[in-house]
């Protein structure tokens, strides 16, 4: 097998309604938009990938896909050249890394399928067949997406915290979740303190992570996190920012501190290690620019005593399953995977990806082990584009 040349790439931008109103400090949303990647090799094998679904990323993916035609999927390291030779050369910023990650994932899947290996095996090994996943808890339970003011009016009524607790208990009953991520609007420390206490009381054994997306200032966040220390939360995720702020907070609390915002690319990692800024690098495959970059981060972080974990937002089954394979492959990953798939009203895969007893099973078969469902895909398609291959 001398080469696995890329012959075509099909991109499909999709919009999928959520079954909840996601409320956090960054946005209140009711849908997720993603770009589905189908990368076909000259041998006829197609790999699946996925990335962000913004128009900018979709447009960039078309541009990168043209440059990808004829390239060898066996040499996935070279895909990063699409961004330029160095960070300085990357004129596309985060969008570039996310676009690259989507194409990279499809190339890994196509390669693994061609080699008749599961993606986990190609990444390292298939060590675990099921992976614990985390259920997101919105900052508040709203009936529809609205403005920030709508959200803060709701948060002013502290009795409303009960609705979030009931929502969490429903996830526990339905799917056996043992791990939860409470999004915070970072508006009211009193709301967060009361809600987290109620969650702990309602679910004494649950792993609970708390994520205000760095929208509390350092002083407020440190004061709040000190009060929360006795609850034994799994970790504080981006309680504040930036790297210096989160490092100072970490020094002041006992609970582990994680970030998905301040250590998000290669050049952030060493300063975080030197500054002892965080305990957990909650790396997002799409922010890090693909599987190899994520794997290098995990190995380096672990080598210096940090714990790598997999971040995600509301991704389709493609990226969700990719994260399962990565967690299975890398022994450095100990924490449960973030996952929002169970809050999507539909998926693009033929095989339902179900959460049972708080975990998801790795599909069997080569590559990701999943197949695209054309009918499901069409129902959520916003636009599609074929680059190379038959039209």
């Amino acid at each position, binding site marked *: 097998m*001398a080469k696995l040349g890329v012959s075509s790439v099909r991109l499909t931008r999709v919009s999928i309604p959520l079954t909840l109103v996601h409320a956090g400090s960054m946005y209140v949303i009711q849908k997720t938009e993603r770009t589905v990647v189908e990368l076909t090799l000259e041998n006829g094998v197609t790999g699946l990938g996925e990335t962000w679904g913004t128009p900018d990323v979709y447009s960039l993916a078309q541009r990168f896909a043209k440059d990808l035609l004829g390239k060898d999927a*066996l040499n996935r390291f070279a895909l990063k050249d699409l961004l330029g030779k160095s960070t300085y050369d990357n004129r596309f910023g985060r969008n570039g890394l996310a676009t690259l990650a989507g194409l990279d994932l499809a190339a890994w899947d196509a390669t693994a399928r061609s080699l008749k290996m599961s993606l986990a095996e190609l990444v390292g090994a298939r060590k675990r067949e099921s992976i614990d996943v985390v259920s997101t808890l919105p900052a508040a339970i709203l009936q529809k997406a609205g403005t920030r003011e709508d959200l803060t009016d709701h948060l002013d009524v502290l009795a409303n915290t009960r609705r979030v607790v009931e929502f969490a208990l429903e996830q526990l009953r339905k799917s056996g979740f043992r791990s939860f991520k409470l999004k915070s609007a970072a508006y009211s420390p009193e709301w967060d303190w009361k809600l987290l206490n109620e969650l702990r009381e309602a679910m004494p054994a649950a792993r609970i992570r708390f994520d205000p997306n760095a929208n509390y200032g350092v002083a407020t966040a440190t004061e709040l996190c000190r009060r929360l220390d006795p609850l034994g939360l799994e970790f504080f995720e981006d309680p504040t920012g930036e790297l210096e702020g989160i490092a100072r907070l970490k020094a002041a609390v006992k609970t582990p501190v994680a970030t998905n915002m301040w250590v998000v690319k290669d050049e952030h990692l060493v300063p975080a290690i030197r500054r002892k800024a965080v305990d957990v690098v909650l790396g997002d495959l799409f922010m890090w620019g693909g599987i190899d970059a994520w794997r290098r981060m995990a190995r380096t972080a672990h080598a210096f005593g940090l714990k790598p974990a997999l971040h995600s937002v509301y991704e389709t089954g493609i990226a969700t399953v990719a994260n399962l394979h990565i967690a299975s492959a890398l022994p450095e990953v100990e924490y449960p995977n973030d996952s929002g798939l169970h809050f999507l009203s539909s998926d693009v895969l033929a095989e339902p990806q179900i959460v049972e007893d708080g975990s998801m099973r790795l599909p069997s078969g080569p590559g990701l082990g999943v197949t695209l469902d054309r009918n499901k895909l069409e129902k959520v398609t916003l636009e599609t584009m074929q680059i190379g291959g038959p039209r």
Partner: protein
Amino acid sequence: MAAPVALSYTHVHSLRVASGAEALVARVLDGSGNAGFGFTLNLDAGVARDMAAWDALGQARGVPLHGLLGGSYRKTVRLVRDELPAIPADWTALRKDILEGRHELLRIDPFAWGSVEMVQTIAAVAAAFDLSIALLAPNAHPWEIQYCAALAATLKGEDTRIIVRTNATKAVNVSGLPGIGIDWSVEPSFSRIRWQS
């Protein structure tokens, strides 16, 4: 972490190479009967078995080692004479030295560090800290140089090189052959090994 392949058979044989040194050669079979070979002149069979497992996987899939690990950064690797000592295979000490900025070039003996996975971990750390890696072929044996070339293909950094203690040619090619890309025939005694079935 070893190669992602289930093995049904492993066997290690000692061998006298042309220089008079003793080598350990490992042979493994995967579940489908695909064979892979590895070796060491350090007399630690673990590295030979690890190498053989990766070789079996690559042979079975028809791809070189770098195709399994993610890709290749180069087609040739510089071969340099260098008599400075290799970094001892002590991860704790290496991490401390890296944090203290004691290295620009990590002189790594892959046969002492023990596995492909360990070299990949060192490579990840080196990339993060913007360090380069030199892989030591301790006896400058052609097998060692070929194995180092297979590993070096996967290492980032313009300064990546193979170091030997003797006079060096300028560069060595990265093999495109399946597995670890070693030409076993350079040692006639290799073909005389009688492997247990």
